[in-house]
């Protein structure tokens, strides 16, 4: 091929795919991809990765912090979302049904002034062990943290209790913001 050009690179192609490129850059990349197969292959890899993430989440294989807006969008798309809302110091009896597609724990927390947020998750009844989730993203104004669970994993769990402790972390140490208990009942 007899061509000369600046290639946009992977990061610019991610911006392009997600709508973060401005109009002029989007047009320039449109034109570039109509002529450059190497960048086209890079674009294909990004799209494949995006689809892979979407598929993994849709299959309930991924646990992640999510947002209320995201959950609302899932519902608007017709996804079967099961939510458990737990106040500070509270508990809830929970389970999952075969038709559930997404399982979300919504936990209230006073997040104003919190610099960094960690969570410690511990389980009982044969699932003993403690897992610390570091530096969770959060919106202080929301006053809650939403955790999407890996539904595929939860489905296989026996009845047990899960205790989540939210911790505010700063240079002076850490303090507990709240403790939340989920009494999980095995799926039917």
């Amino acid at each position, binding site marked *: 091929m007899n061509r*000369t050009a600046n290639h946009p690179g992977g990061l610019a192609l991610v911006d392009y795919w997600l709508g973060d490129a401005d109009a002029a850059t989007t047009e320039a990349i449109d034109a570039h991809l109509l002529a450059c197969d190497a960048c086209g292959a890079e674009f294909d890899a990004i799209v494949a990765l995006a689809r892979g993430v979407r598929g993994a989440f849709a299959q309930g294989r991924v646990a*992640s912090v999510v947002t*209320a807006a995201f959950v609302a969008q899932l519902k608007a798309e017709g996804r079967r979302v099961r939510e458990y809302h737990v106040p500070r110091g509270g508990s809830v009896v929970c389970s999952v049904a075969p038709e559930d597609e997404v399982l979300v724990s919504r936990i209230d927390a006073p997040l104003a002034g919190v610099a960094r947020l960690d969570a410690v998750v511990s389980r009982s009844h044969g699932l003993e062990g403690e897992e610390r*989730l570091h530096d969770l993203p959060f919106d202080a104004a929301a006053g809650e943290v939403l955790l999407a669970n890996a539904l595929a994993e939860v489905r296989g769990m026996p009845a047990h209790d899960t205790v989540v402790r939210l911790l505010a972390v700063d240079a002076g140490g850490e303090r507990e913001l709240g403790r939340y208990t989920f009494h999980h009942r095995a799926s039917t």
Partner: protein
Amino acid sequence: MDFAEAAVDTPEGRLAARVVAAAPGLDREAEAQLIRLLAPRVRRYGQRHLRDDHAADDLVQQVLTLTLEKLRAGAVAAPGQIASFVLGTCRRTVIEQFRGERRREGLLQRYADDLPLADLHVAPRLDHERVARCLERLAERERAVIVLSFYEEQAAGDVGRHLGLSAGNVRVIRHRGIDKLRRCVDAGRGMAA
């Protein structure tokens, strides 16, 4: 930003010139090669701007049908720069689709069977379990940003608004996470191969 290709002498330009030179007859081999070259490129444009694989496939049919029609009729001013013609056709077709015009249906009925698209290149699909395992290895922030970005195909500002992050911060986290994720997925592929 300038990503323009200086298309001096390109494979697609040479093939387009062959199609024009064959008129009023047909150079089927040149047409088939041209379609194979251009179809994945048009499909990418459709994926980006229509956000739907089926709509992107329809776009490929519409745009390349019209392109061949114009080349055979000698109605493309610069066959050597056929990529520019195709880009313009993509833009107009997508705008027409957004306006709800039905020209595409007529075109498809007239010419769809004429396009050799059976072997159209389609982007690879990744194993979801492998992607999930690699997502698990990311930091919480990276995983959240990537899931929220890619699941709903949201721009950085939209993701950040609800996570207490600026758009710039989301882009930094997203790029770092994608880099790790790709390396992990690619390493898994290598081991599986």
